[in-house]
C-alpha cells in the first residue's frame, strides 16, 4: 500500500508537469480554435532561453528563469503578430498547418544551439536534500517535482482568477466560436489572439523548465515530452482549464501506475504489454473517455440544433 501511494504521488507530480503543457495547448485552442503544433517547440525554446541565461550568460538562475519565461511569452506574441494575425478568419486547419511551419522554424534554431550534448539548466534543485529529494515518513518527494506541482497550482489559480475577473476569459471563448460575431461585440480579436499566444508562451516555458530542469537535461528531443501531454488535453476537453488539469493528473497517474506495475501485471496475467507501454497507456484511457464523452470530461459540448 505504501508503495502504491508512493507511485500515486509520483503520478500526481508528473501530472502537474503535464498540466502546465496542457494549459498552454488549451489557452491557444480556447482563443483560436487551433491545436498549436508549435507548443512543444515553444516549451523547449523556453528551456533553451533559461539554460542560455543561467549557464552561458552566467546570470543568476532565478533571474534567468524569469527572463526565459517572459522571453518565450514574447516569442509567442511575435509569432502571433507576424504569422497568425494574417490568418484571422481563415480555416482552422490551414492555421494548424502553419503552426507546423512555425515549429520547424523554432526547432531549427534551437537544435542548432542545443547541439549534440545534453544541457543542464543551471538550477540548483538537485543540490537540496538527497540529490534533490526529501522524505516524509516512508514517502519520497522531489523538490523539483514539488515545485512543479506548486507552480502548476499557482498558475492555475492565477489563470482562474484572470478568466473570472477579466472580460478576456469570455472574450477568448467567444473568439474561438465565431470571430466575426466576436468582432461585432467590439472584441479586439487580434489582441485576444496575442494574449493567448503570450500566455501560451509563458506556460510553455514554465513547463519546459519543469521537464528539463534538475537531472532532466535539455536535448534536441526534449520537445517530444510535451507531446505526451496531448492525451491529457483531450481527456479533459480541449477548451477547459479544469479539464486540462484533471486530464493531466489522470494521465500522470496512469503513466506512473502503468510504469511501476507493468511487469507485475504481465507476470500475473501472463501477457505482454510491450515496450514503452506506460507512455501508451494514457491513450487507452483516452479512447474510453472519448467514447463515453466525445467532448472530453469538461469540454464544451458542441451545440447541434437545426
Amino acid at each position, binding site marked *: 500500500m505504501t508503495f502504491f501511494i508512493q507511485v500515486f504521488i509520483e503520478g500526481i507530480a508528473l501530472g502537474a508537469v503535464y498540466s502546465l503543457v496542457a494549459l498552454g495547448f488549451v489557452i491557444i485552442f480556447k482563443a483560436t480554435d487551433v491545436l498549436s503544433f508549435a507548443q512543444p517547440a515553444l516549451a523547449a525554446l523556453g528551456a533553451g532561453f533559461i539554460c542560455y541565461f543561467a549557464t552561458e550568460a552566467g546570470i543568476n538562475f532565478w533571474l534567468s528563469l524569469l527572463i526565459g519565461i517572459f522571453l518565450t511569452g514574447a516569442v509567442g506574441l511575435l509569432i502571433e503578430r507576424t504569422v497568425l494575425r494574417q490568418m484571422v478568419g481563415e480555416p482552422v486547419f490551414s492555421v494548424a498547418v502553419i503552426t507546423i511551419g512555425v515549429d520547424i522554424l523554432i526547432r*531549427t534554431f534551437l537544435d542548432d544551439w542545443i547541439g549534440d*550534448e545534453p544541457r543542464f539548466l543551471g538550477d540548483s534543485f538537485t543540490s537540496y536534500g538527497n540529490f534533490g529529494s526529501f522524505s516524509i515518513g516512508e514517502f519520497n518527494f522531489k523538490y523539483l517535482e514539488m515545485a512543479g506541482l506548486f507552480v502548476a497550482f499557482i498558475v492555475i489559480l492565477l489563470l482562474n482568477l484572470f478568466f473570472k475577473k477579466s472580460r478576456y476569459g469570455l472574450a477568448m471563448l467567444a473568439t474561438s466560436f465565431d470571430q466575426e460575431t466576436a468582432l461585432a461585440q467590439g472584441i479586439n480579436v487580434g489582441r485576444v489572439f496575442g494574449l493567448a499566444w503570450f500566455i501560451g508562451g509563458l506556460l510553455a516555458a514554465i513547463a519546459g523548465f519543469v521537464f528539463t530542469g534538475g537531472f532532466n537535461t535539455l*536535448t534536441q528531443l526534449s520537445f517530444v515530452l510535451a507531446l505526451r501531454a496531448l492525451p491529457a488535453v483531450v481527456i479533459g476537453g480541449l477548451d477547459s482549464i479544469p479539464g486540462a488539469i484533471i486530464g493531466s493528473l489522470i494521465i500522470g497517474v496512469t503513466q506512473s501506475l502503468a510504469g511501476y506495475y507493468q511487469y507485475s501485471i504481465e507476470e500475473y496475467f501472463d501477457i505482454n504489454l510491450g515496450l514503452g507501454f506506460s507512455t501508451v497507456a494514457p491513450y487507452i484511457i483516452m479512447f474510453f473517455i472519448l467514447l463515453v464523452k466525445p467532448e472530453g470530461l469538461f469540454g464544451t459540448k458542441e451545440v447541434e440544433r437545426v
Partner: protein
Amino acid sequence: EEEATEEVVEEVVETLDSPAVTTAKSVNTDFGVTEEPCPEVIGEFPTNADQAKGCIYLGILSDYTGPYGAAGLPVEVGIRSYWAWKNLTGCLGDYCVAVREAADTGYNPQKHLEEYNAMRNDVAALALSLGTPLTLFILDELDKDNMLAAPLSWYSGWSFDAVDKGLIIEYGSTYCADGMNGLDWSLDNLPVDIKTIGIVAQQDDYGLDYAAGVKTAAAARGVEVAWEYLYAPGQFDVTQAVGLLVTKPVDAYFPAIDPGSMAQLAGGAAQNGVVPITMMATPSFSGQFVVEGSPVKDLFESGAFYISSVFAPYGGETPGHENMRNILAGAGVESTSVYIVAGWASQQHISSALEASIKGTDLTRAGIRRAAANVPVSSDGMFPSKTLGANVQTPVSVMTTPNGALPGGTAILNSGYTGPTGEGYDWSGGPCS
C-alpha cells in the same frame, strides 16, 4: 580459401611498403574521382587540398534533424578534420580527399535512399552512413555500386560479410562485446559482489546488441538478470526505469540508452537513495555530465559509474589520440565528443582502403571494395592492430570511468580489455542480436 586471403594480405602489405610511384594517369578510376583538384573550402571547412593533385570525393549521409541529430555535427567535424590533416600532410598519392556537402537524412530511410541516390555517382565511398537500419536498407544499392561505407554504429552484424556484404567498415569493438566485457570486468575488478543485474536498453541495434552481450556474459558467469527494461527509441519513461531500480534492487545495471535519459535515470535513482554499479554503453555517457557545474558531476564521479567503450574516448592515451587532439585543438574545435573520435577513426580505416587501392592502381569503386576486403589499418595505436574486412571481431573494449578533469570527461582504467566471456565466445556465429 584461408590461404588465398593470406596471400592477398601479403601482396597488399608489400605494395604498401614500396614507395608511391604511381602517377595519376596510371590509376584506374570511375566514380567520384577527378583529375581536377579538390575545392579549397567546402561549406565552412577548409579541405587543405593540394591544388596540384586530383581529388577523391567522399559522401556523408548523416542525421542533423532526427533522433541522432546530436551526433551529426561532431562526427562530421571528426571526419573533415581527419581529411584536412591528411591532405595537409601529403594527401594519398596523387589524390587529395574531399568530403562533399553532408546530406541530412533525418534518420528516415526514404530520405536516406533519396540522398544516396543524389550522390551515388559523385562519390568514391561513403565517409558516413549514419544508422544501422538505414544503412541496411540501402545495402543492396551499395552492393550494386560497390560502395564502401563507414557507419556510426558498432552493431555486431557489421562483422559478418553475410550481413554487410563486406562493404561496411568496422572500427573498435561492438556493443555486444562491450556488454560482455562490461560485466566480466565488473565481476573481476570491482570490490562489489555482483549477483543480480538489470538492463536498461533502447530497443534497436545498439541497445539490443549491448543487452545481448550482457546476457551472454551473465549466463556464462552465473549472474542473474533480474529484469530488463526495453523501450522504443524516444519512449524512455524515467519513472518506470527508476521504479525498477528502486523496487527490484540489483547489484549492478547496464544501460544502453541516450545521455539525456541517462542523466535522468541515474539522478532519479539517486534521489531514491539507489546508486548501484552502473556500467554504461558508450553512447549513454556524455562528457557534459562531469563538467564543472553539472548537477550530476558528483554522482557520476562517485565511483559507481563505468563505461565499457567501443574504443578509447577523446582522452585516449595513444599516439593516434594525441595527434588527433593536437590537430583538433589547432583547428579551434572545443568539443571533446566521442563522436569526433568516431568520425576521425572511421576515416583512418577508409584512408587505408583508399591508399591500398591507389597503390593497386585501381581506384574504381570495385577496386576500392576489393582493397577493403583485406587491408591492414594504420590507426596510430588508436585501435588494436587489425585487418579490414576479415570476418572476425575484435572484442576489445576500453574500460573507463567518468572524470571531469580529463578531456572527454573519462579516465581510462583498462585500454584493451577482453574478458573471459568474450575470449571464449564463438564470434563466427553471426550477429549477437
